[in-house]
């Protein structure tokens, strides 16, 4: 059985079966990347374009590596300094790239819905690598895989996402995916960074971190963009750290077998203290490794691959 979806645009409307298939397939690729020879052939002859309208070294490297591990041919396109900077529209850019005969597009873009817009006219398979504050499905999938790898399940776990929920695509994709898989999700952050009506996504909402952490299994700490203070959403980073920084003290509130996560890059000493980031229960680096395996699974399955 293959995936029901043709593109990976977000997790909002992806079924439990599809997510399970991706997580199961990730497990096989996770084994592959532990081998001395990490390369496998399933995407041989397939050309993937990494179309990055917004710089993101981490996500791009992870996708690029995943593509190479699957033996795909890879082209990188960064909007900066390209025809885009000269005013070419997204539609024209993509049509030109498709004329080079490519198969898949991995796109990062600052506009919400940009990858959905692509599906209206492009014939390639589209993977959303982050669209504005909307979704970042592969990040959520790697988070889910990482949690699953630790607990053997997602069902029934309580996961707290802390930080700037308003501007976070990671938070949105995590909420949709985790809810679909039966986890209970809470969000916590300053009220200026909590979107109105977020409770309608089926999450518990907190502005008191101690309360939110109480009885939780996993805490996923989001990166705080320093610009939020300049935009008047926060009085100071110091106050943010006092109220929402994850410290060793606060870890005591979590359930015994707790896990600390962060999508990176971290502001050490702002949203997370160094001792927590480097502590025994932190799986921050494991997340990075899993990211490559998840992306291999997504690329493989969207290209028509099946679970083996």
């Amino acid at each position, binding site marked *: 059985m293959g995936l029901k979806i043709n593109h990976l645009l977000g997790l909002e409307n992806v079924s439990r079966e599809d997510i399970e298939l991706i997580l199961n397939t990730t497990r096989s690729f996770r084994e592959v990347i532990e081998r001395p020879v990490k390369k496998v052939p399933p995407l041989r002859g397939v050309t993937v374009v990494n179309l990055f309208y917004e710089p993101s070294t981490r996500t791009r490297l992870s996708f690029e590596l995943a593509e190479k591990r699957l033996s795909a041919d890879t082209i990188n396109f960064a909007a900066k300094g390209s025809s885009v900077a000269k005013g070419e*529209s997204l*539609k024209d850019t993509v049509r030109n790239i498709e004329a080079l005969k490519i198969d898949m597009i991995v796109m990062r873009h600052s506009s*919400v*819905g940009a990858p959905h817009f692509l599906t209206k006219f492009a014939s390639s398979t589209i993977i959303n690598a982050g669209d*504005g504050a909307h979704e970042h499905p592969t990040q959520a999938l790697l988070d889910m895989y990482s949690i699953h790898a630790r607990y053997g399940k997602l069902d029934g776990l309580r996961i707290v996402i802390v930080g700037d929920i308003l501007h976070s695509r990671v938070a949105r994709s995590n909420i949709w995916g985790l809810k679909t898989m039966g986890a209970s999700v809470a969000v916590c952050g300053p009220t200026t960074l909590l979107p*109105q*009506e977020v409770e309608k*996504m089926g999450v518990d909402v907190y502005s008191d971190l101690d309360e939110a952490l109480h009885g939780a299994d996993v805490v996923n700490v989001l990166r705080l963009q320093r610009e939020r203070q300049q935009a008047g959403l926060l009085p100071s980073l110091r106050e943010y750290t006092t109220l929402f920084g994850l410290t060793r003290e606060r870890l005591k509130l979590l359930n015994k077998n707790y896990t600390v996560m962060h999508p990176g890059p971290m502001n050490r000493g702002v949203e997370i203290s160094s001792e927590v980031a480097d502590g025994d229960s932190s799986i921050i680096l494991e997340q990075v490794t899993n990211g490559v395996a998840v992306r291999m699974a997504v690329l493989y399955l969207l290209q028509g691959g099946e679970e083996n």
Partner: protein
Amino acid sequence: MARLKVIAGGQLVDPSADIDKKADLYIEKGNVSRVETKQLLTTEDLKQMEPGEFIDATGMIISPGLIDMHVHLREPGKEKLETIQTGSEAAAAGGFTTICCMPNTTPTIDNQETVKFILSRARQAPVRVYPISAITKGQKGKELAEIGEVVAAGAIALTDDGYPVQSAEMMRKAFDYARMFKIPVIEHPEDLSLSGDGVMNEGYTSMRLGMKGVPFVSEEVCVSRDLLLARYTGGRIHFAHISTAGAVELIRQAKKADVNVTAEVTPHHLSLTDDLIAEDFDPNLKMSPPLRTETDVRALIKGLLDGTLDCIASDHAPHSHESKDVEFDLAPNGVIGLETSLGVCSTYLIKEKHLKWTQLIRAMSTRPAQILSLNAGSLQEGFPADITIIDPGKEWIVNPERFLSRSRNTPYAGQTLTGKAVYTIVDGKVVYKDV
């Protein structure tokens, strides 16, 4: 060509005289000469008339010509998107006999020359076109436009639409000064500091999509401010495109308190909601004010029913296909509406049994004429024979390729609508026919 003399057999709906019955309309020298409920002409009489002198309106509604008081025509400055001529042709096709054009052209309509230029172009147009001047020079919100001069040249109202006046002090001056000329000040109510770089309504859908939102309070803060200023100065305020339930309630209360206020609502705010954006991020659903929620739509319809909202205006805003065929947040605000207004309103309001024809025609003809003091919006004897004949049951599919407007940016493409203008008559002359 023969001059139109009589329109017979139709249902005459004239809210200005509380008429809604079968009647024949007689026209002489471009004016209504007689409204007759008895059938004076026999089939024999009609047969003897020359073709063109007579319209058989059996099964049709005879309405005073529709008036759209909020239209962007893009000339001068952006004639590729629309001109006074093409906009007027689109208006005629939509059943409008009068349209009013907004001042955000290049140059801005804020001086006599531009007003005169528009009026001279309007003379060739199939429908009546009235210019509305800016409140402030260049719509910059800093100095009053030469209001006395533009009024003398023919401007019939003032607005900085699109660039809402942010300074309360400036707005106060506008009310005070405009009072001398007895013309309304039209406000696009929006506090830009609250709207920020929002691209859609702030609410559940924008939250879910991670889209930047325009909160409803950005409209309501400005409505409140202007109502207070209008009351204080004795000024006359007309609100453009009201979109929120709260704004309707503020206006309802102000009307009870005798503030000199009127308001309009667009067909799209009466028929579409923000959750549609999540379907495929169609930039033709991007407008200012943004599409709101189901609750707001219900409140707008209720406001229209009880007269809190006086009229319907399209806010016809032409944009090129290229500028709209992009990522949602990068697309400009605005949709066209001249050719779909009537069909959208009759489909979403009348077919859905929210409104009766007489209420819709009041909102699309009689009230805008009254607000702007136009000699129109009525089919009583002596009024100009500006008439729209509507086939209330006609089903048609919105096909933007066939629009007479130069632009195609409509959110209704492909939809089947019920109700259409089949004749548009200006000054007793048929300017559009679809039979």
